[in-house]
């Protein structure tokens, strides 16, 4: 070339010299090791809070978790009692929310996977993703404006509706994922037999994807069971046991924890820990069971 740089290619150069590590190589290798070490530490640090949290909830909650907590309603001014009103409340509010949210979420997922065009599906999916990101307390305000204000009455149903709104996009996205795993050949076989599209969707696609749908629903339930913010101005909370009075205020476990954590009495704080342990056990159990099973299938 024009620079006329002399060539090395004739004489050739044994690679031995080139393969010897230089100081720069050692520095780079050191940086690399440091990076790997720091990354490992970071990963460990991310798990530490989980461990600390579970440990303390178990430690502080185990003492409070007794028959009273499970069976007695709250008594005034920290005189003991239990979380029965809250437990029964959660057992009503959450399932009702699930019953409302499940069909909507599943149908919406069927629509995007089976019926709609790509663009509509993308739009709806996008809306669902964005909705997952809306702070749940705002959903609470929305439910308050819609279901409490007109009746001048805090009520359990409004709480269920608020939770349902939170659950719908979660159910939809998880359902979608499991429906997409249903092989197209199944659909075609059914359609070829003359089964109409809607029946194919329901009886073939949905049934095949059912376990995935159920898993998604369980995760949504676990999430809703721990939601507090949307219940504050809807279900409101109630010291008394309320069974079936959906038009009336009702307690729930997360509300119970929130309220009792803020009281100056140790007995109430301790009840909050007990309720937290109860809630944590439920949420972790659902997650471990569902994700442990589905994770193997879905994780990349």
């Amino acid at each position, binding site marked *: 070339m024009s620079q006329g*740089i002399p060539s090395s290619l004739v004489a*050739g*150069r044994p690679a031995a*010299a*080139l*393969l010897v*590590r*230089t100081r720069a190589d050692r520095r780079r290798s050191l940086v690399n090791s440091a990076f790997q070490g720091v990354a490992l530490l970071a990963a460990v640090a991310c798990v530490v809070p989980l461990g600390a949290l579970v440990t303390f909830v178990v430690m502080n909650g185990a003492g409070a978790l007794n028959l009273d907590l499970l069976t007695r309603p709250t008594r005034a001014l920290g005189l003991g009692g239990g979380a029965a009103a809250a437990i029964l409340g959660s057992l009503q509010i959450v399932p009702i929310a699930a019953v409302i949210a499940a069909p909507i979420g599943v149908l919406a997922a069927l629509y995007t996977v089976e019926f709609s065009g790509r663009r509509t599906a993308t739009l709806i999916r996008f809306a669902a993703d964005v909705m997952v990101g809306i702070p749940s307390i705002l959903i609470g305000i929305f439910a308050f404006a819609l279901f409490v204000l007109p009746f001048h009455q805090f009520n359990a149903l409004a709480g269920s509706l608020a939770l349902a709104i939170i659950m719908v996009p979660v159910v939809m996205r998880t359902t979608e994922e499991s429906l997409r795993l249903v092989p197209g050949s199944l659909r075609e076989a059914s359609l070829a037999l003359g089964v109409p599209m809607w029946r194919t969707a329901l009886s073939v696609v949905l049934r095949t994807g059912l376990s995935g749908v159920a898993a998604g629903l369980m995760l949504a339930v676990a999430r809703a069971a721990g939601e507090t913010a949307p219940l504050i101005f809807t279900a409101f909370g109630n010291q008394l046991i309320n069974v079936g009075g959906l038009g009336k205020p009702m307690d729930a476990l997360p509300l119970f924890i929130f309220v009792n954590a803020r009281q100056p009495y140790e007995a109430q704080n301790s009840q909050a820990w007990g309720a937290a342990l109860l809630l944590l056990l439920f949420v972790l159990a659902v997650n471990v069971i569902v994700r442990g099973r589905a994770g193997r299938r879905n994780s990349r």
Partner: protein
Amino acid sequence: MAIDAAQPETPGAPEGRQNPQGRPPPETEETAVAGHAPGVRHAPGVGHSPELRPGVQRLPIAVGPGPGDLTDGAAASEATAGLLEVRHLNAYYGTFRAIRDVDLSIRPNAVTALIGPSGCGKTTFLRTLNRMHELVPGATVQGTIELDGVDVYGSNIDPVRLRRVMGMVFQRPSPFPTMSIYDNVVAGLRLTGRHQRSELDAVVERSLRRAALWDEVKDKLRENGMSLSGGQQQRLCIARALAVGPEVLLMDEPASALDPIATLRIEELIAELKQSYTIVIVTHNMQQAARVSDRTAFLTMGEDRAGYLVEVDETSRIFTNPRERLTEDYVSGRFG
């Protein structure tokens, strides 16, 4: 071939090749320290870091002998730089043996083609050479591979260092999409620290010229590498591999994702590059092997699904009169 454009007459070149006066001493920093007085860390003539040296000092192909000038090339190949000796090589993925007992000697300044049915371990073999194989979790190697007499699996060998000496070009062009053409070429050099702008400029031009891409991209070095055609992208990847100054170039089906014209350009480029490098090319295309290579190694799969070397010989012999029946079947079957 782009000989006319890429090969200006440079009268002083032959002298330059015989006279290594400007060639920096082969020592790296460490050997320099070991071999000389401690103070003499930077031998005279080493104006830049050792990593940069090979890429800078190598003479562009353009001044090398023309492709027809084979006697000259043969003279050059007597040099020992870039001689690979593979002995009793076994490669594993976990417990599965992918390569069984390969003995192969790979000559410098020549193209060695690896052919064989798919799944016979050609690519795995290639990746054992620059120790890319061991990056796969559970992948291991037994046996020895010597580069100019140095065991590349020796305990004192840093695979990261080794890969700079044995460059690799992959099946699919893989420019870094967030980098410009310029930055793609110097990506390897940037790893080893700061370099002066003028040094980098020189390496970019030299590497791109060697990869026969300079004329096409010299006016748009700042543009994104993804803006190039597939063939250009692959030559960019070759330039990127050359820029760090390797001795050996490992090519894994480098033209299989390209159209015929781009393929032709790559093949022409390989013919030029072999005058400076040891080239090992995996190809599924036997005509290509016949066209570009000097020697051909035929691998196939045994009963145990492990790939093994059937024979290696001059390419002309493999394709006309191989010693082994298996080779003949394979070669004639495809050509038949």
